[in-house]
């Protein structure tokens, strides 16, 4: 396995000297909005949705990085651009030290063996007309595993994810939500990946089933030495599985921290509000301490200049600088990074 360049791990901070599995530089993913005929006729400028706008993300081998944020913050787009399921507009993505954004298709396909994804919706992400064998066997077929070996490998995978081998010829509709998610996991694991993006893998499941899947993902990580990028809006889940967490707001990472640090002392006002907004069993009766944010996030179509959280920020210190100057993600040491003028003392 190729070692990543030292430069990479030095920049990330949190992981000490561990080699980085994945690193990306100032990534941007923009989507053009389709203009009306009239607008095109008069040559109006095409507007863009800046789903991901200048994000740096480093994931070290064997760790789990949690990516949290509310809907529309760009977390799924970010994850998909990492896997090159979307082609980012600018920036770079390195996997084990190797730039992947300009890889030719054939090489990219070979690399996909190492990078897999688990999707949120176990209903929409499985082909209803294929059997479990076909679904889980597809990545194997693509990677050139001989036909006669596939069934055996699929049976093995079913056992790994805790599905009865007898169900190999069943169709997705014959399974419950949790079981379908297990099929999705088996498919992702089929090609023995090193890096797995889990995009809201438990959000569509009932709590008791959620816990089953979380435990399964943890066990698989230990068994196969997987590296996870775990995307979710559920902070309880992310705090449970992640070593480090990145908080996203409107296409940007606003805070980076080790999980314990983030929950012990959230620094960015958005993180503070997010954490205090979650209703939990442990915090009952302490409702009034909650920070209630006003309004909802602005649209990522041509977002405001300055701090993107400015409109909803509740800090007394906020001033003109915040409105006009876009805060940098400042490294506070010990793996902590925050993009806030008030915290970084650049007001």
């Amino acid at each position, binding site marked *: 396995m190729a070692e990543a360049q030292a430069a990479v791990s030095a920049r990330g901070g949190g992981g000490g000297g561990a080699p980085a599995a994945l690193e990306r530089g100032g990534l941007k993913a923009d989507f053009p909005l389709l203009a009306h005929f009239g607008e095109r006729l008069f040559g109006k400028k095409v507007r863009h949705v800046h789903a991901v706008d200048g994000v740096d993300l480093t994931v070290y081998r064997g760790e789990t990085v949690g990516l949290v944020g*509310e*809907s529309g913050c760009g977390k799924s787009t970010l994850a998909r651009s990492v896997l090159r399921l979307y082609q980012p507009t600018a920036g770079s993505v390195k996997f084990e030290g190797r730039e992947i954004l300009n890889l030719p298709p054939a090489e990219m396909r070979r690399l996909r063996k190492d990078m897999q994804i688990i999707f949120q919706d176990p209903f929409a992400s499985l082909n209803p007309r294929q059997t479990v064998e076909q679904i889980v066997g597809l990545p194997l077929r693509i990677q050139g595993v001989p036909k006669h070996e596939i069934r055996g490998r699929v049976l093995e995978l079913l056992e790994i994810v805790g599905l009865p081998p007898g169900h190999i010829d069943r169709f997705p509709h014959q399974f*419950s*939500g*949790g*079981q379908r998610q297990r099929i999705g996991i088996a498919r992702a694991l089929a090609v023995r990946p090193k890096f797995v993006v889990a995009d809201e893998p438990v959000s569509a499941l*009932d*709590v*008791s*089933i*959620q*816990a*089953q899947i*979380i*435990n399964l993902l943890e066990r698989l990580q230990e068994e196969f030495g997987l590296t996870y990028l775990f995307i979710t*809006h559920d*902070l*309880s*889940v992310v*705090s*449970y599985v992640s070593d480090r967490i990145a908080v996203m707001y409107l296409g940007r990472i606003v805070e980076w921290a080790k*999980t*314990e640090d*983030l*929950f*012990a002392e959230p620094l960015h006002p958005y993180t503070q*509000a*997010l*954490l*205090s*907004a*979650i*209703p*939990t*069993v*442990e*915090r*009952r009766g302490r*409702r009034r301490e*909650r920070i*209630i*944010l006003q309004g*909802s996030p602005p649209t990522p179509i041509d977002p405001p200049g300055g701090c993107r959280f400015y409109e909803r920020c509740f800090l007394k210190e906020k001033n003109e600088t915040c409105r006009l100057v876009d805060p940098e993600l400042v490294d506070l040491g010990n793996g902590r990074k925050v993009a806030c003028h008030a915290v970084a003392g650049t007001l």
Partner: protein
Amino acid sequence: MLPDTERTINAEPILDVRNLRTHFFTDRGVVKAVDGVSFQLYPGETVGVVGESGCGKSMTAASIMRLVSHPGRIVGGEILFMGEDLVRKSEREMRRLRGNQLAMIFQDPLTTLNPVLKVGRQITESIRVHAGDDREDGGFFGWLRRLLDPSGRISRKEAWDRAVDLLRQVGIPAPDERMRAYPHEMSGGMRQRVMIAIALACNPVLLLADEPTTALDVTIQAQILELMQDIKEKRGTSILLITHDFGVVSEFCDRVIVMYAGKIVEQAPLDELLDNPRHPYTQGLLASIPRLGDKSHKVRPIKGIVPELHDLPPGCSFSTRCPLADEYCGRVEPELEEIAPGHLVACHKVDATAAGAKGA
């Protein structure tokens, strides 16, 4: 069967559901979505109904609103709302109640609001249909009676002003402008506020909220919960909150009902339920929630999957997943019994569950 709280002595329940049974007659068999559910809701109280998908919590609410659609049907029981049995009401009488004394908000405001009507029209319509005039019967004679005797009718202008006021109360900025917006022009949180405004239009005595914040982001969920708390305190509305989220319940409810496979398995005041859960299912649910920011607390999932409702195991429905179940549990169905004031549990092994009660 009645919980023995002080409330039963000095207040009549506003809602008294007795042995409610709502079944669906499908090709695959009879699905007992709600199977012998009994509970009471007292004035000003907020009761949470918790359970996983398919446990019958939403169908319980739909039955109370009499909104169960084919092939489902209420096959037995009583729903006493302010002393009157809703099960026996005609559709016309129900229509008069819904939106007046009885209101409901749903999970997804995008599918419950009419996409081709401006929200102002939808709110004023609700106000004009329900408020003041209960002779809403259609047809020529209804029209004639309203024409001959316009008293109690609300003018368009009046309804508009009331709607604007309602939008302001639910915290919508620039309500005048928002009245002219279509639902798709609003964010999810905004739309849910509009739904709440419509539900509150006629000052309901009882509000049924079916997963009102599930489709929303956490910061928006916090806003909506804050709003509902406000409504509860200011108007004294009784609320039945249907949710799968124990977090929401623990911040919002006075009492909790836990449902599993169409039945109530445990019911208790909030603190009692969280500190001393006694049904193995409740214990399992609480143990499977990860704690915020605490990795040392390992989640313990409930084994197995929720059984199909048309093919329930004999005896206790939870017996196939229960760590304590024995042969007796698989044969005889447990009754809901009161083990402490207001704390009801349906489990044969209730004496053995005290040890595992340290759920939360």
